[in-house]
Structures are given as C-alpha cells and as structure tokens.
C-alpha cells in the first residue's frame, strides 16, 4: 500500500509535465481552432488552395526526402558495415555531423552551396555565364532536409547490418541467388524494422522542420512556415491552431503506423 503511494508520488512529475505541455495545449489549440475560427478553419484548410497546397507540398516533400534518404543511407550503411578502409571512422563521424547542427545552420549551408554567392552559382557563372541558384526553392529545402535525414538512417542501418548473419547471405548464394535477389529477399527484410523506424523519424522531422524552412522558404509555403505566418503576421490564431493540429496528426499517424509495422517485422524476424 505504501509502495503504491510512493509510486504514485514518483509518477506525478510525469503526469504534471504531460498535462502542462501536452494535453492542455492540445485542448487549448483545439478550442482556439474551433471556437475562434467559427468551426470553419478545418474546412478552409481543405478548400483554400493556399493551405491545401502548403499541406500537400509538405507531405510530398517529406515523403520524397524520406524515400531518397532511405535509398542513399541503406547503400552507405551497408557499405560502411561490410568494408574496412582507411579513414572509415572519420567518414562515419562526418556523416553524423549534421545531427549536431540546428536547422538554421543547415539552411545556411544550403545557401552557401546554392545561393546567389554559392558554389553552384560560381560554377554556373564560369561555365555558361549565369548563376545557378536553387537554395530558395523546393530543391534547396529538399537538399537541406536530406542533409539532416541521412545520418539518422545511416546509423540505424549500420546497427541493423552489423547484426545481419553473414551465413544468411552465403546460404542465399549457395542456392544460386544473385546479389540483387539476396539484397531484396534477405538483406532488406532483415533491415526492415530499422528502415521503417528511421524512415518515420525522417518523415516526422521533415514535416516539422522549422529552422531550415525559415532560412530558405521565402517563396515556398511549407506547413511550419504557414503556421508561423498565420500566427505572427496575420494573427489568424484559429487557422494557426488548426494547421498545428493537422501537422501533429499527420506526423503522429505516420509514427504510429511505423511503430506497428516495425514491431510486426521484428516479431517476424524472430
């Protein structure tokens, strides 16, 4: 009995924090989005092109970033696990670098690369006499997101690949399977839980990334930027609240599915 009381006492901070920083704000957001918006905020998101486009382009961009990150990082992760070479540790350290940078800095990197004075602009100027610039476009945003997504997947893939039983690959080869067949039938299923969980983290991060978007998205509306604009510039609190909830919902659903899928394949992997 006494133990139960102590346990309750111990769990209290967690309850207070989740109420204060999660449940209450959500309820408040919902209230604002419905009451102040006269209940039409959500309808507006779906009918007004500006909001709908913002939502769809953010989901599209995040999906594409996730997909490309998974492809690049799987190849890189497998390579780094399988081969030993000079400078490997330095390369791994460099690959995990982006995890240490805030989004604004990554946005700045993209500007350095593809902005008006960037590397690409200089090359373009030298070659064809015009500046190649894409920092302030979807392409620039994509590059920035990719930059901070890849290390998340690479490190997960490396962890999973190290556990991959080499005998499985050898068994596949002895049965006459080509390297590609083994990759599809043996390697990918083994990496699947890791790919799903790191992929969903990539997606969620890309959906909500603000720093990079704030630095680069002068001409594009991604959801976090739209929320910011509605809130600070237009003082449209209802719309900002509705958009926030939608953003949260999409991310939460994605993480939920990923968790179930990941857990299912872990179970399947025995």
């Amino acid at each position: 009995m006494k133990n139960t009381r102590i346990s309750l006492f111990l769990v209290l901070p967690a309850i207070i924090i989740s109420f204060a920083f999660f449940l209450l704000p959500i309820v408040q957001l919902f209230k604002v989005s419905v009451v102040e918006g006269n209940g039409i905020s959500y309808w507006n998101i779906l009918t007004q092109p500006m909001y709908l486009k913002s939502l769809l382009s953010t989901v599209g961009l995040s999906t594409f970033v996730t997909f490309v990150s998974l492809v690049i990082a799987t190849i890189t992760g497998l390579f780094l696990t399988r081969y030993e070479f000079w400078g490997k540790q330095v390369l791994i350290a460099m690959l995990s670098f982006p995890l240490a940078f805030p989004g604004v800095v990554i946005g700045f990197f993209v500007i350095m690369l593809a902005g008006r004075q960037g590397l690409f602009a200089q090359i373009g100027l030298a070659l064809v006499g015009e500046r190649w610039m894409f920092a302030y476009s979807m392409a620039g945003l994509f590059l920035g997101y990719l930059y901070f997504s890849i290390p998340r997947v690479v490190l997960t893939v490396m962890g999973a690949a190290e556990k991959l039983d080499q005998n499985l690959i050898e068994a596949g080869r002895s049965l006459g399977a080509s390297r590609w067949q083994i990759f599809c039938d043996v390697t990918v299923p083994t990496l699947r839980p890791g790919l799903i969980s790191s992929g969903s983290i990539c997606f969620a991060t890309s959906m909500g990334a603000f720093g990079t978007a704030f630095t680069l998205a002068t001409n594009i509306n991604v959801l976090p930027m739209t929320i910011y604009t509605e809130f600070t510039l237009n003082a449209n609190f209802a719309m900002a609240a509705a958009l926030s909830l939608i953003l949260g919902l999409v991310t939460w659903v994605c993480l939920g599915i990923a968790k179930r899928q990941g857990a299912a394949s872990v179970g399947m992997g025995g």
Partner: protein
Amino acid sequence: MTDKTNSVEITLKNITKTFSDGTLALKPTDLTIKAEEILVLLGPSGCGKTTTLRLIAGLEFADSNGGSINFGDKNVTELPIEKRKVGMVFQSYALFPNMNVSENIVYGLKVRGIDTAVIDHKLAEMLKMFDLEKYAKRGVHQLSGGQRQRVALARAIITEPDVLLLDEPLSALDALLKARLRGDIRTLLKSLGITAVYVTHDQEEAMAMGDRIAVLDHGEIAQIGSAKEIYLQPKNAFVADFIGQMNRFEGNVIDAQLVLNTGKKIPLSSEALASSNANETLSMMLRPEDIRLTKVTDEQHALTGIVSSSVFLGDRTRVTLEKVQKEGKVIVDCFQRIEYPSGQIVALSFESKHLIPLQG
C-alpha cells in the same frame, strides 16, 4: 529425388589459403573425395577444416599459386559459390527468418525461375521426405533445433546439387538428438548417392558419419583414412590424441623389451623390434581398452602401477594409474565389474600387437 544423382569426384590439387592478415590457413594440400563418398574433415578449431570446406564451396578462393579444384572434369577453381552447384548446410542453419518453412525450402528453385508446378511437386516431396508436412506454413522461429536442421537439409538438396557441404550441422543440438540425426543424415546421403564433405570437431560424429576421415592439424591433413585406420593406426601423436584416449610409453629397447624410466618393462612385438635398433629410444602408444588389469600384492611383476582414481562410466570403469612411468598417468578402461580402490597395486597386461609405434 531419392534417385541417385550424377555425383562427382572432388579433386583439390596444391590448394593453399593465406588470409589477408598473413595467416596461413591451409598449407599446400592435395585431396581427392571420391564420387558418392562422405568425407569428414575433423580437427580442433583453427585447424583449417572450415577453410577447406569454404574453398570447396567457393565462399573463399585459394591463393593463386597454380592450385586447382575440380568437380569431376570441371575446373571450378575460379567459380564463385553461385556457379558451383553445391548445397550447403550451416552450423547456425542460416534459415531465412522472413520466410516460412516452405518458402525457405523452395528458395533455391524460385531464384532459378523454375516453373511453379515443378516447385510445388518438389516441395511436397521434400516435406514428406523430411517429415515436415505439418510445419509447411510455420515460421522458422517456431521450430525446434532438429526441425530447423531438417529444413536446412531439405533446402540444400532440393536443387539437386553436385556436392553437399555440411559445416558442423549438428553441433547446436543436444547429445541424444545428435546421435539420432547423424544416423539419419548418413542414410539420406547414401540414398542420394551425393558426394558430401562434412566438417566437425567431434570425433565420435566423424567416425559415425564418414566413409573416410581427414584429420587436420595446423592447416594440413595429418592423416586421411577410414575410421578404423585412423583409430588403430594413427600416424602421429596428434591424430592418436585427437581420436579417443591414448597412453604413451617411452623407453629404451633392451633385450627385445621396452625399458621405461622406472625400470619397468614392456615386451615388444617382432614387427616393432624389426623396425628399431637396440638401445634406441622409442615411443609406443596403447589404447586404454587394450589393457587388462590384475590386482597384485607387490610390484615384482614386469609392469605394474598404482590406482590413483577410478570412475564408473556405466559401460566401463575408467581407471587412472600412477607410477608406471615417472611422469604421466596411464588410463585403462575396464569392462568387468571389478572395483579398483585407490592405492591398489595392479599388473598391466596386453597383446604386444596392440602397441602402436609413434612416428614423429
């Protein structure tokens, strides 16, 4: 499927393997495995048995020093495993965890693009042959060790390989199951008539499985022959010690006897005498089961020892003797139900033809 396959002879000529760190894993080796033969590669860990198997499999490639590996007339030295038509069973079974029993078994046929009807027919045959029909749709993690082992075997032979390679396939199982399965595997391999190479570190398993056994030591074949040859005529101390228990006697040849450093004497056979000179130092080996003990009261007999311990092992009693020689003990297996208390003086007797001269 149970029809005899076109089995091939495997020939290794001057095959050497050096690892990238400079370790010589296999010294220049010649080895012929006859068609339909089961050859067991036996030895302690690090002796080169698994390396030899992986070289035959095509998972490793031999040093480029002109050596060759042939399957029948076909030179496979440069071919990777995918092109060699070998079936392989791994110690860990290496079943694909994301596939069920049936999917595992047919994988080799599926990747070859074989017609579905043929695959289904062969699968049914395999499931029946290995008594796995009930488990066809089960996930492999739901199977017991013995069942996994059967799936691994079925998967390896469904493609009708020229050669079957087994890398310690029973070492993950308990002793009882092991003993039963090695009989089953041998019967299966013989009914398939397939050339097989079987790696193990277990001498009993080697003797039960192999038509011939190659004992490997430090990257070379120490001896190759039938179980009987290896047990009864070991070529050197390593083979003698690795297969079963062995006693060693060392002394000088005086008056047709081997005189030990305790002054005790062992009569030598005429063959042993013919190949040795008087006063020469000689080593002789003797199996524990070839010695008989008689309780005596004093040490006046030619060859006596004192019991230091005795252990009842069910079918025999293993008696350890001291003071036969100055160093080392003598182990004797007694099959009669006689108690030998510690401190008991015993006389040793045996037929001199059972003495094995030690060379090298």
